[in-house]
């Protein structure tokens, strides 16, 4: 029975990691209307920055902090040219950016090369029981996710949140009301990238090895599916979407061992998630949860 407990703990840890990614995409797309198909790039930058530093012997918190800062800066850097583009071009550019980063990491041997980085120190001390280690990991990712949630929650109920929602609805009107829309887009893009960075840094120490091929563009689209399932512009939905998707993915992985199928059972997961997305697009395009309402003002 221990296996099931471990299985569920591991699953929840991934819900935490992907919940953060989906939350960060929701801040960008759901609230601001920025098309980012390169979420994986910032996840990868976080994982690599932290992985490289900690294997060099720096403490884990330094690795995490650097992962957050470097991915945030990378987000800011790419936003400078990219955010001047129309939304569809921004989508293409971010997608390409993710691939460029992956190919650089794959070809630069001093950054790990195709084999990536192994033996990343974990936050759990070695020699403890596996279930205990998983519990510690789950507690850690829950804390990080809670911090990200707190920041997002603060943003969406604030004047800043009002401006980014305004940009999503009508950028010219927002600019005519004195808002430097570029600054807002760049700052939310950078903040979201930093969030993706911390998720990556956490993942690196959890699985203790990372390699470029873990960061295929498909991962960015997985995060998009989570946002679509949970609901656009809903920060709770980000985590709900991650939970549904990951449960579904793992459920299909187990189910294929018990089912006799006329197809390659490994494809079952893709078929089922495709079906799920289709059902959502047809019957609930806004996702499960509706947009977070802005908190009511005092004295109104």
């Amino acid at each position, binding site marked *: 029975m221990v296996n099931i407990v471990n299985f569920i703990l591991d699953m929840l840890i991934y819900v935490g990691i992907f919940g953060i990614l989906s939350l960060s995409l929701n801040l960008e797309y759901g609230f601001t209307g920025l098309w980012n198909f390169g979420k994986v790039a910032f996840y990868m930058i976080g994982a690599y920055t932290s992985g490289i530093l900690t294997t060099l012997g720096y403490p884990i918190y330094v690795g995490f902090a650097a992962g957050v800062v470097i991915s945030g800066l990378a987000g800011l850097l790419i936003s400078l040219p990219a955010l001047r583009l129309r939304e569809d071009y921004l989508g293409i550019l971010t997608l390409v950016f993710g691939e460029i980063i992956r190919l650089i990491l794959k070809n630069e041997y001093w950054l790990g090369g195709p084999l990536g980085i192994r033996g990343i120190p974990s936050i759990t001390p070695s020699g403890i029981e596996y279930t205990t280690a998983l519990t510690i990991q789950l507690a850690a990712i829950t804390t990080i996710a809670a911090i990200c949630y707190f920041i997002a929650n603060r*943003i969406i109920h604030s*004047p800043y949140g*009002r401006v980014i929602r305004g940009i999503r609805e009508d950028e010219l*009107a927002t600019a005519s009301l*004195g808002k430097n829309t570029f600054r807002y887009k760049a700052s939310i893009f950078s903040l979201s990238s930093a969030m993706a960075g911390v998720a990556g840094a956490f993942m690196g120490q959890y699985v203790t090895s990372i390699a470029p091929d873990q960061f295929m563009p498909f991962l960015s689209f997985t995060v998009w599916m989570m946002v679509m399932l949970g609901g656009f512009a809903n920060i709770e939905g980000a985590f709900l979407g991650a939970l549904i998707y990951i449960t579904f993915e793992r459920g299909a992985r187990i189910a294929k061992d018990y089912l006799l199928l006329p197809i390659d059972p490994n494809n079952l997961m893709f078929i089922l998630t495709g079906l799920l997305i289709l059902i959502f697009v047809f019957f609930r395009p806004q996702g499960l949860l509706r947009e977070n309402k802005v908190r009511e003002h005092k004295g109104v």
Partner: protein
Amino acid sequence: MCDLTQILATDNLTKSFGGLIAVDNVSIQIEERSISGLIGPNGSGKTTLFNVISGALKADSGKVFFMGKRIDNLPCHLIYKAGLVRTFQVPRLFQKMTVLDNMLIAARGLIGDSLIGTLFRGKAWKKQEEELVKKALEILEMLDLYHQRKNLAGNLSGGQMKLLELGRALMSDPKMLLLDEPAAGVSPVVVDKIFEKIVELRKNLGLTFFIIEHRIETLFNYTDKVIVMYKGQVIAEGKGHELVENPKVIDVYLGEY
């Protein structure tokens, strides 16, 4: 050029779209604390002139001065910061936000509208918001929109949307307002209310207004001067009663008046 009594001046302003010259060598002067009207047939370039002045479109040539400073190279948000605020002909409200939030977003000098301010100065911006809410509610009350404050802007009627646009512009403490048909689709009683409000705002706050409007009677009653545009050019300028007798204006705009 930069006479101090003139708050807004354009100097040979030109804007064309392909072969169409929408604004053709327009030079106008608007005096401070005045209410000026802009009329002309559809497609005569009135809205384009507003778009160029407010920075939504870039002029091909010519200059725009606001309070003695050139603003024709500035982006929209800096023109707003200088105190020149405009409304749109087709209301550009944030449909998924409440009426009140539509008002608040326009306020000037918000502490919480930068990322740092939002995250680290929570108490300060919350206190500021409370004061701004009071101010916004006063303006909404004046515009008969108070009962709609919690509704989504997208659910308002066409006329109410126009009023909310005006309210949003007022929320920003402007020095000068460019109003693009503020009374289109608004009932006659409210039209008079809007224009009376405009006169009052000029008197109390010293605001300057430049208004595109098709109701000439209303415009002639409330404005100090009216500029007439036709095919991108200014063809006449003067007080309402002078223009009624101007044959050019009768020909292109008024018809058998």
